């Protein structure tokens, strides 16, 4: 499949890739590529979109010559008019730096911990590092030059990595999910700088992302990939506004977006019958009440550092309360305090009107509140079979005999729509979505009244994310669950929550019903957050239920 160049300004593409196939010696067919081709003009930004395992990273590494020796590569590329067989890693290595440069997802581990920023840059260019850093988005490069990576934030590290990549003035920058691990405001700023650099230097960018909205905001061209093949190519606007492939449509439909009443997965911001109307806090019977909670640590120099300061949050029965904030805002600490993983230095926690003190827990309390972690991989014991792990809370609380427990566990797993063939498996052989279903099933085994979801869908692909959110909503309705939903992703929050609490630097800064808060944020910080949110065009139509059936 060939992408017809849209740009008219040059006759020849900067890079033209033809017939790339990659097979891994170990036989991991999932990440192999099958016969890909595309062109990219100088100065253009190409977005490669796809869910995990679609092969987008493999392709970028193939172009950059960074695939491990175990990968068998076929195909070739033309770069600035010269042909390069992609199997010749040595030849490709010669291209890196001045021809092609690449940056990666995890900025904290991208830099050498033993080197200052200055040395990082000096290794790559003899020139003055200052302007380079300015290009990468540092306002005052002098401040950062002598810092070590561990002294910088993730966003700063990524900017340094970008500066390193740009040091030899590459013609093409490949960026593999460079902002996925960053806060949304930082992401916005980095995207802005990348776009500016591309324009200024006439440099091309291949931008890999799982986030359609990011791709839409940044890219001229978009490639949609799945299972190692290109499903769709075209200009960003065209692909997103009028997707041709079913998969693309499904992806777009799965995106949590700021259109509250659009589809089946959209949050029921209008309250279920018999419950309080939206936007009125604490009218319902509060299932979980966090009252003036503070959590303090001591810093190395002996001062006290409050991760959470006097935060009060109520979650009513059948209510989903979103807790938003960027990294280190204290939202996770607050959630952990609620279940006793962290001891609050002040404040009171009560469940269903009863004050609980986790330092002297009663077994029955443990059954009333459950917690779902971000990474479903880590939340399950890698050695235990799924059904046994779901049964575990019953084992711990010695509820019922063995047969009953097994039956309950299976019932819960079915409730989360997990295929019963998987019940006897170990987590390793399950996908992320399946694992998250299992952890949800486990949390529900003891029929808790309160559920805390700590970034529970952040690690999942967007289509799976949509399904899990749907599942949560369903369960909420069925059991009148009170859910405290923590996320840095405002679009997800917008989807699912009745009410939103915004935290920053450990303090609660704003609170309100979802719809109103998003439409009319009072705090400037909230406004920044919302503004930084990458958005898709408001056009596309489809109904997710149909899409889901189709996929």
């Amino acid at each position, binding site marked *: 499949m060939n992408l017809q160049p849209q740009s008219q300004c040059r006759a020849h593409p900067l890079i033209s890739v033809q017939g790339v196939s990659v097979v891994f010696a170990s036989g991991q067919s999932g990440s192999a590529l099958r016969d890909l081709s595309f062109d990219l003009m100088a100065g253009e930004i190409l977005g490669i979109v796809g869910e995990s395992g679609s092969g987008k990273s493999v392709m970028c590494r193939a172009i950059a010559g*960074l695939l491990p020796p175990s990968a068998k590569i076929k195909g070739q590329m033309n770069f600035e008019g010269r042909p390069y067989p992609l199997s010749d890693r040595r030849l490709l290595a010669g291209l890196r730096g001045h021809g092609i440069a690449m*940056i990666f997802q995890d900025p904290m*581990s991208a*830099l*050498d911990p*033993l080197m200052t920023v200055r040395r990082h840059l000096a290794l790559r260019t003899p020139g003055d590092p200052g302007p380079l850093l300015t290009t990468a988005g540092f306002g005052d490069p002098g401040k950062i030059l002598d810092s070590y990576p561990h002294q910088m934030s993730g966003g700063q590290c990524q900017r340094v990595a970008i500066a*390193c990549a740009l040091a030899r003035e590459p013609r093409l920058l490949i960026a593999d999910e460079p902002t996925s691990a960053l806060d949304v405001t930082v992401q916005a700023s980095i995207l802005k700088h990348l776009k500016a650099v591309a324009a200024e230097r006439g440099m091309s960018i291949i931008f890999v992302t799982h986030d359609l909205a990011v791709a839409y905001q940044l890219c001229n061209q978009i490639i949609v990939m799945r299972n190692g093949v290109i499903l769709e190519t075209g200009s960003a606007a065209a692909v997103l506004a009028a997707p041709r492939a079913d998969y693309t449509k499904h992806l777009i439909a799965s995106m949590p977006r700021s259109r509250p009443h659009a589809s089946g997965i959209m949050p029921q911001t209008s309250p279920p019958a018999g419950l309080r109307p939206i936007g009125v806090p604490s009218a319902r019977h509060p299932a979980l009440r966090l009252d003036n909670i503070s959590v303090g640590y001591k810093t*190395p120099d002996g001062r006290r550092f409050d991760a959470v300061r006097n935060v009060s949050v109520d979650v009513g029965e059948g209510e989903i309360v979103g807790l938003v904030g960027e990294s280190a805002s204290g939202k996770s600490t607050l959630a952990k305090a609620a279940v006793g993983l962290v001891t609050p230095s002040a404040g009171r926690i009560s469940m269903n009107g009863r004050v609980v003190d986790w330092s002297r827990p009663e077994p029955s309390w443990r059954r009333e509140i459950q917690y779902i972690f971000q990474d479903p991989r880590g939340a399950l014991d890698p050695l235990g079979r799924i059904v046994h792990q779901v049964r575990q809370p019953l084992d711990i609380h010695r509820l019922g005999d063995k047969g009953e427990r097994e039956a309950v566990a299976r019932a819960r797993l079915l409730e989360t729509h997990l295929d019963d063939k998987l019940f006897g498996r170990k987590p390793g052989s399950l996908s992320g979505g399946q694992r998250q279903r299992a952890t949800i099933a486990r949390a529900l085994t003891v029929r808790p009244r309160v559920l805390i979801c700590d970034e529970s869908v952040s690690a999942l692909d967007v289509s799976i994310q949509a399904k899990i959110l749907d599942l949560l909503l369903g369960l909420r309705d069925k059991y009148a669950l009170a859910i405290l939903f923590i996320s840095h992703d405002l679009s997800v929050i917008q989807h699912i929550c009745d009410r939103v609490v915004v935290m920053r630097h450990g303090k609660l800064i704003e609170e309100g019903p979802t719809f109103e808060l998003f439409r009319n944020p009072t705090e400037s910080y909230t406004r920044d957050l919302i503004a930084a949110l990458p958005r898709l065009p408001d056009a596309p139509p489809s109904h997710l239920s149909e899409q889901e059936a189709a996929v």
Partner: protein
Amino acid sequence: MNWYLFRLGRACITILLLLILAFFALAASGDPAQILLGPDTSQAAIDAFREKWGLTLPLWQQFLIYLNGLLHMNFGLSYRTGESALALVLDRIPVTLSLVLPTILLSIALGVPLGILSAMHRGRFIDRLAITLSVVGLSVPSFLLGVLAMYLFSVKLGWLAPSGYVDWSSYIMPVATLSTVGIGTYARFTRSAMVEVMSRPMIETARASGLSEGIIHRVHALPNALTPLITITALEFGHFVTYAAVVENVFGWQGTGSLLIESVSARDFAVVQAIMIITGVTMILANLLADLSYGFIDPRIADLRHRSARRLRTVCES
């Protein structure tokens, strides 16, 4: 500052444990009078000996007297010779060090490149060969190797003097024998450290921004893989000292190790204690030094120190 205090406190407790162990364990193990004077000795001579060395006092009093002496840098007198135990040990330390230091240097000089070579060719023949060599180095008892080497180079070929110090060539066999273990250890350590570092994202980032493999190995991989080498060396120092005892014995060198073996079997308390204390203190200092120098190389170490300091506080508070 807290970190230093914390480390210092730990070190002091360790030394105290050491003293207690050295004193009471050895005291429980046999009557030095009987051991030193032999089987034919008359009771009178034994009594005289006990009286002379204060062995008739209760143990705890002997211990307190000993501790008090230590405070005045008095490690006691050797029962065997009546000389200062410290002087005896200090006399021997240069010998052991003159074996151990070249050994460490040689082990690093050969083991580290071997490990790097191995890591660079991971899974290939050269890697397997290097691993096998290092395991062989670790597995052959050093005394056996020593005797074999001596037979070959001294008796058969007549190249080297088999024992003691004659000239610089006397170092060849003992140091080579001792180094087999060290080379194996360093090679294995370096290999796994290099393999680990080379799999870090920062290596891919460096490649992706156009740095050559040579620069990456030299500038990124090596420093990161080798910083822990300092700690390893500090810990390995103890192993070297132990194996030096065996090698000293085989090659007839009068070092601390052979002194220890003599003194343990003779129950020459003061000397054994002095050796254990000096070895222990040296190890503690070596570890401290390693930690300190680590701080110069790895900027993250400051955080580590803060973390230990925090742990100390939790200990104190609880």
